């Protein structure tokens, strides 16, 4: 078993937390996993991305150029990472923020997720990242939403533990959206 993904967006959209949570869940599921944040001399509103590699063998490279799946949360990320997704890979586009002109890819498996609207539906627009993560988990099948929910307490700073039910709801809403639209990808 081997899976890799790049998650990208603006700093502040929760990109690194998405990767972190997926990595924690993979570890709890007994897999080998590496989480690699791309950091730099970034400013607020700059771009952030992370790569997660999950395997049942020791992970070699934490660097991935052409991922099996990508989540792009803003225009620059869509432009940069969309075309790099493998030919039969999965591209999840945050259609609440990404303009269609920036969606370019070799793969036909593209799902546009109105993450903001779905997050508003469950009462917290700031959980758009968890909506997308729910979609990614549902469609990739490497870890389950239940695995993710289980590790929320260890991945989240105790200050935010009161947000666990809301995060769970967003993950589940995202997964439901993915299920309903599975036919498209």
């Amino acid at each position, binding site marked *: 078993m081997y899976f890799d993904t790049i998650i990208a967006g603006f700093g502040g959209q929760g990109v690194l937390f998405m990767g*972190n949570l997926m*990595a*924690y869940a993979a*570890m709890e599921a007994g897999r*080998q*996993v*590496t*989480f*690699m*944040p791309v*950091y*730099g*001399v970034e400013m607020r509103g700059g771009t952030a991305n992370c790569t997660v590699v999950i395997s049942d063998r*020791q*992970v*070699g*490279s*934490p*660097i*991935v*150029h*052409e991922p099996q799946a990508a989540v792009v949360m803003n225009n620059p990320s869509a432009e940069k990472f969309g075309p790099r997704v493998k030919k039969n890979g999965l591209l999840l586009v945050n259609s609440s923020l990404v303009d269609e002109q920036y969606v370019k890819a070799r793969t036909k498996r593209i799902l546009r997720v109105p993450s903001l609207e779905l997050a508003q539906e469950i009462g917290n627009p700031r959980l758009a990242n968890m909506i997308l993560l729910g979609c990614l988990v549902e469609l990739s099948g490497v870890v389950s939403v239940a695995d993710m929910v289980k590790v929320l307490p*260890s*991945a989240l700073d105790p200050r935010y533990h009161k947000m666990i039910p809301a995060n769970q709801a967003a993950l589940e809403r995202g997964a439901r959206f993915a299920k309903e639209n599975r036919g498209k990808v």
Partner: protein
Amino acid sequence: MAKRVMVKGNEAVAMGAIAAGCRFYFGYPITPQNEIPEYMSAELPKLGGTFIQAESEVASINMVLGAAATGARVMTSSSSPGISLKQEGISYLCGSEIPAVIVNMSRSGPGLGGIHPSQGDYFQATRGGGHGDYRTLVLAPSTAQENYDLTMLAFDLADKYRNPVMVLGDALLGQIKEPVELKPYRKKPPAKPWALTGCAGRPSQLLKSLYLADGLLTEHNWKLFKKYQKMRQEVRHELYRADDAEVILVAFGSVARILRTSVDILRDKGKKVGLLRPITVYPFPDEAVRAAAQAAGRLMVLELNTGQMVEDVRLAVEGKAPVDFYGCPPGTIPTPEDLAREVEKLWRKGGGR
């Protein structure tokens, strides 16, 4: 199995140090290793230990010398430019035979350079970047787990040889997050009869690196030399898919783990290629490299610099097999596909050198 936790590479270093009984940390902040002092500053006071953010790197390495002289397990960490500043102190630690652990999560240079991963400090680490005829043991991890394990080992080796030991990682190994098994430390640290603990009831003793009287310094240097010879038994390396290889790649640290994937890519294409990863870069695994050259007939060295470890590989091989080189100066991290392509290019060229 011990508990597995998801931690940053830098945190794994700090956890390994604390597990091995390190209770004193002195440092000065610099990216990309700040999670080490951050972790130590939070945890050491709870254990009755001491964390000091010194006024400079020079001050911190001298605090290391002072605390370690009393027999305590002591660590400092920094990144390239900061390690340069510590060199005088490292030379004094070697001269005075005081054990300590120094972590270099190296970044790019020369000068202030940048915060990208780089292996440009290989020469400095393995040759001893300070003055005088000395050596430090240098351990080169390539996973967060090894950051933990080798930091523990570094304390044992430092005490065993009464010598500073360096853990040489880079920005990539400091920033990745991986599960780490928190293996308990079960050894009993050795007694340190040489330590300066107050001389009530015993003759006073001295730790120093100044030897002015006739012949003493010569004697002292020969004594150190014999110790460095003995350190050769600590040599460690790892082979990956090298059994039937026609070309063996040689790489350490972060680039070695990227190459693990390149090896898989090339093997899938039917190319018989393997990987030799030095885990100690001083002492260098000469014999393993020589054996690999003999078995495969050809070596290729890949580094995140323009050619440093390749010199040690060529010294080990003694001209008996071609040794090719591909180097990536800092700025971008090569992907496994990039490196696989470069290996194929060198392969097609043939010959080596």
